[in-house]
């Protein structure tokens, strides 16, 4: 199983944020349509399964 936390669209919420929760992050992706580009941010838990997510793209780790 892959999880949201392993995706390159996943950005953990900083501890200083008002909505911080351990393991929670922002799922940010870029979209484009005929009117232009935009970015969406949705709240997700990092341990959520991403097996069925069509946007999943594994984060590169060094």
């Amino acid at each position, binding site marked *: 199983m892959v999880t949201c936390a392993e995706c390159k669209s996943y950005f953990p919420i900083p501890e200083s*944020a008002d909505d911080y929760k351990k393991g929670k992050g*922002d799922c*940010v992706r*870029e979209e484009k349509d005929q*009117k*232009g580009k*935009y*970015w969406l*941010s949705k*709240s997700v838990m990092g341990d959520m399964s991403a097996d069925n997510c069509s946007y999943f793209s594994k984060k590169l780790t060094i």
Partner: protein
Amino acid sequence: MEKIVQLSSTNLDQLEQREPSTERMKRLKDRCRWKSIMGGEYIDPDTKAGMERMQILTKAYKENEGQPEVIKRAKFLELSGREHTCIIQDEEILVGYHAENPDWVCLYPEMGYNATIDMIESDLMDEEYKDEAREIAEWWKPRNLQGKCEPYFKKEELEVGYTYTTMEPFPFALVYMSMNVPYKTLFEDGLENRIQICQEKIDNAFAEHLHTDVNRPYDGVKVGEQLHKIDNWRAFIIAAKGIIIWSRRYARLARIIADHFDVPDWRREELKKMADVCENCMAKPARGFWDAMQAKYFAWMLGHSYERYASGYAHLEDNILWPYYNKSVYYKDPEQPLTKEQCLELLEEERLKVSERGIAKGRTYRQAMPGANDLHIITIGGVDEEDRDMCNELTDLILEATLNMCTPEPSFGFRWHPNCNLKTKRLVFECIRRGFGFPAIFNHNIKKWQLEYYFNVPREEAARWALQLCMSPGRSGRYGTQKTRTQGGGHHYVTTKCLEIALSDGFDHSYTRKQIGPKTGDPAKFKSIEEIWDAYVTQCRYACRLHTRARDITRYMEARYLQSPFVSILDDACVEKGLDGMEDMDYPNPWCNIMHNSDIPDSFAAMEKLIFEEKKYSMEDLVKALRANWSGYEEMRRDFLAAPKWGNDDEYVDKWMRRFFETNYQLTHEELTFIDGGKPLPLPQTVSLYASMAPFIGALPYGRRHGEVLGDGGISPYVGMDKKGPTAVLKSVSKVDHRKTKGVQLNQRLSHQIMRSEKGFQMWLSYMEAWWNLNIDHVQFNVFNVEDLKAAQKEPEKYEDLIVRIAGYSARFISLPKIAQDAVIARTEQELGA
């Protein structure tokens, strides 16, 4: 921000072509996600109904079962702040949207079931979401505003109230509301300060009353009084914290885009500044113009499109933003330095953001506002309580942005006074002569006096009135602003339908084929014009009373089930008293729209002349002719068409308009008291219902056939019937007492050749001087070349920027249905100087 490519000229006499002030604004306009509507449907096929708001709302309510209703409302906002999708579009400076996709709209299942299910079952919602959406709508059915209000009406009353005949559909089914967000409080205090004030109120309530101090007496009455207030203050705090989280998630998104996505360097730097603005603008006092514009936009989006649905964009923009503009542009070492050009760009972008606002209001009002996405009218101009000019550099910049962007939204109302400076008036003229149809012009003195005299608004506040929607003034500061349409305006009875059924004993032959009004007698047997008038007034009275009851019951239930804790925390009166804005009954500002106006005096003048004076026809003849839709009665119809008509300074028919106005005042202000103690004033206006209601109104005695357009505006002559020039129109209009109304809508079409000539400004100023001296409430103008409009009907793609005035709003001409286009074309052109 992007470097300005072209600064607009200040030499107004030479100015003809206008365009957005930067290349970026041009690009944003080209890709604007318009949400205009035609025939009740969205023109852009990408517009869809989203699920996210409904899902979060329902989840919040279920998770907080058992909590006070206002707490559930607040928890909904808190959860939204944490979970709702944030969207930032490429190159935009002002951010925020209320649905999960920038092309989508959100639904309001807690308001009306009929309106919600209508959306769900339409093509607006994708099939994959419909099952879940239906389930949510059914869950809300007994809990929503409509479900709460319906038990207080008989079945036959609901039948009348759910169809658009003699009255506007009941508000709890209509899903059309309005409000006025106290932006000034947000700029001056910030939500963190408001939270602190509310917390202090709670602490004080406990310290003073909910205590166990054995050395002080216990007063259970006081304890009881505090409980509801504590719930409200807690709700305000919960909602405000949720909103701060929401705005800071936008800040975070801007930073993530800047740090992790491929954007140009200038944009990367701009995104970081946007992040700083979003981080602070809702939580803290505005540091400058950018904070204020972003805070205003967030608050408007949340108050009008998310917390609930409400039409409008009520505020006195140049007045409340001026301190922040001044700080940013002119202070030495400002916290948020901006150039005038950067401020202009923000104002230009605001116009596009408003145009992108998609709203899922009920079908009735989607049909009633063809070409627009909603009513968004901002107020500018005027004088203060000492009659000093309130127009400032920002007023002019707002008008410059309007000229540059050439969008129909937001529209403007200009508070006219002789002391307003000429430069600003020239810019107002420029907008009008380009055919925008706005700013609409309002008599500042009449509006100010009205608020002081009828509604006890203090002098200084009354001088700072702002339009609540398109015609009616109201408070605009920190205190006691309108929170819902049932507190202030709207609701109307339809005079033409009332007259139609007065001439058929209360039965609707042309549309519903039902008894929709009281039995007022066989019209064929009426022996005098007074009998007809009495029957007509009885029908109006019935419609007015029934609708008023629907409105009051809606208000009662809004106060209990549809609170607005976010907007309420911004109102000093709400926080002071511990009352949600829906339940604070201390600031009534009510009116009752009167739909279709010139039709009535024109009808009565014709009947008086042809039936009771010349006796050329009988009442029996008239009833047969109307029932036949004049078919087979062509000569008779020509006679009725030729009878004296309103707008020609002809006392024969003008006396009927005076009587009509007096009767409206009697039926509303004298005979009604609303649930909050307010006594409404009549407001004759017609919006676009002169066209959209045409199929529902049968033939009328001034010669109109079933389906033909009805009278325009609130006091405008019927199209083509004003034959004696603009001065005759103004003279007729001045014969009624405008002080006995909340406003009177006057539409005038002026010659484009004269308005666009060298002498146009001077001639228009002369017209306005005559208008002012005749003590007339309002006027708005159409200025267009008929050939352009006819060409636009054939090749719409070449006329995308062609804007016309419809009623209380303007629209892109090509977005209108043909019947509305034809009605605009047919408006009589007045020659200035006639």
